[in-house]
């Protein structure tokens, strides 16, 4: 039995790798002990804004209609959310849609959206799976959209690895970009050193495999990591409670 099978994991994704890097304890809690934390309002904001922008680009909608689609999606996703940030994020959604459409409308309608990719890493027992946001095949451009409240001056390492994987799986002949959108500004950066980022992600995935191979018992693996309960990963009361129950911290 491969170490992933023992933990009922059928694949890895860039986000799972990033979770393992950022919080091994939350990785154990969510992926091995199967105690899922509620999705935060910020994540729902990202999903909703992307929905509005993609709809706007595909259908050539005015900003108001694209924003309405995003608002509706956000309301639907957060209907039962207890996250206190819902109100703040709700206000951000239409503003981000407007800024995002302004940034991306010149690209025209994407030829595909939410495209699934699968990539095999040598020595890894499961495939890497992911979904890219938007691609314009005629131009050979792939863009991943990231919403944030502070515009970064460069692509984050985690985002670089994520999008590099899409390119490696899809075609080396792609111009990969990451579009950051805030409520006021936007910037689209070109991804550099794609192969090196794929190599890094491969090393991380293999590290996860080695970690899982230590034991098929998730409780045993939990005992070799420690949660930082002050991190945002444990901000949700349910996640905080779960950490207490598993680690006594």
């Amino acid at each position, binding site marked *: 039995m491969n170490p992933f099978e023992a933990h009922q994991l059928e694949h890895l994704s860039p986000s799972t790798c990033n979770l393992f890097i950022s919080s091994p304890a939350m990785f154990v809690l969510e992926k091995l002990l199967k105690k899922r934390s509620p999705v935060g309002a910020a994540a729902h904001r990202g999903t909703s804004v992307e929905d509005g922008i993609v709809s706007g680009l595909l259908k050539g909608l005015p900003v108001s209609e694209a924003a309405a689609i995003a608002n509706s999606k956000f309301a639907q996703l957060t209907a039962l959310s207890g996250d206190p940030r819902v109100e703040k994020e709700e206000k951000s959604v239409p503003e981000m849609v407007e800024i995002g459409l302004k940034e991306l409308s010149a690209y025209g309608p994407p030829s595909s959206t939410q495209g699934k990719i699968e990539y095999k890493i*040598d020595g890894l027992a499961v495939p890497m799976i992911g979904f890219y946001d938007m691609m314009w095949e*005629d131009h*050979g451009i792939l863009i991943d959209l990231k919403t944030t409240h502070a515009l970064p001056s*460069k*692509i984050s*390492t985690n985002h*670089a690895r994520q999008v590099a994987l899409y390119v490696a799986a899809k075609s*080396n002949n792609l*111009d990969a970009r990451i579009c950051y959108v805030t409520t006021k500004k936007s910037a689209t950066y*070109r991804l550099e050193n794609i192969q090196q980022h794929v190599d890094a992600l491969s090393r991380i995935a293999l590290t996860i495999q080695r970690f899982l191979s230590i034991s098929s018992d998730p409780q045993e693996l939990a005992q070799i990591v420690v949660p930082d309960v002050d991190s945002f990963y444990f901000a949700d009361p349910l996640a905080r409670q779960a950490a207490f129950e598993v680690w006594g911290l």
Partner: protein
Amino acid sequence: MALGLNFSSEGGGNYLGFVKFNAKAGRIFRRDRENGENVDTDISRTFKAIIDVENIEMGWLDFDTGGAPSMVMGHHSAPKPPRPDERHRWGARVVMKLSKELGGDLREMSSNSKSFLRGLDKLHDEYLEGVKKNPGKLPVVTLGDPIPVVTGEGAKRSTNYAPAFEISGWTKRPDDLVYTPRNAVVETDEDEQPTPRTPPSTGSTRAAAPAKAAASSDDDDWG
């Protein structure tokens, strides 16, 4: 294989804007400076330029200096200069006049990527053949689908792309496209770097939306 045999360096230096060929992506970009930042526009699908193939410069280029690249360049018909050091790799530089739709200005393109040189060498061969029937003229060049060049095996397997330059016509040399020997230029090239010694950068160059498709042009369209 008429290129890559000879060389020497010459100083001097008029500043020209850049066109970059990204061998990893097989795409060509026009780089502009806006508000203090580099903005790259993908012109792969619309690329059209009069390229001064007659005066391709060859030489030793080191883009990995942490600042302005170091180049020792000369006309391709001149003797090959000594290599400054192991960090310098054999490469080429060429000046072109972009089509009116792409701005109509003079730009230079330089690279020490082997796949780029492969495409440029092929263009040069076709130029030498075609110029016999078009004496004194320069080729109007477009870009076809890039040609994958696979190197290495296993974990070291890598795919780069050679530019598929295509001569679509011939035209008289534009008045402003005058060959002037130059040496150092300021630009970076991340293609085909040696084994990295530092963490890879992620990207901070802003990318513009692709330029709209250009209409067909004739000799009068060159800005």
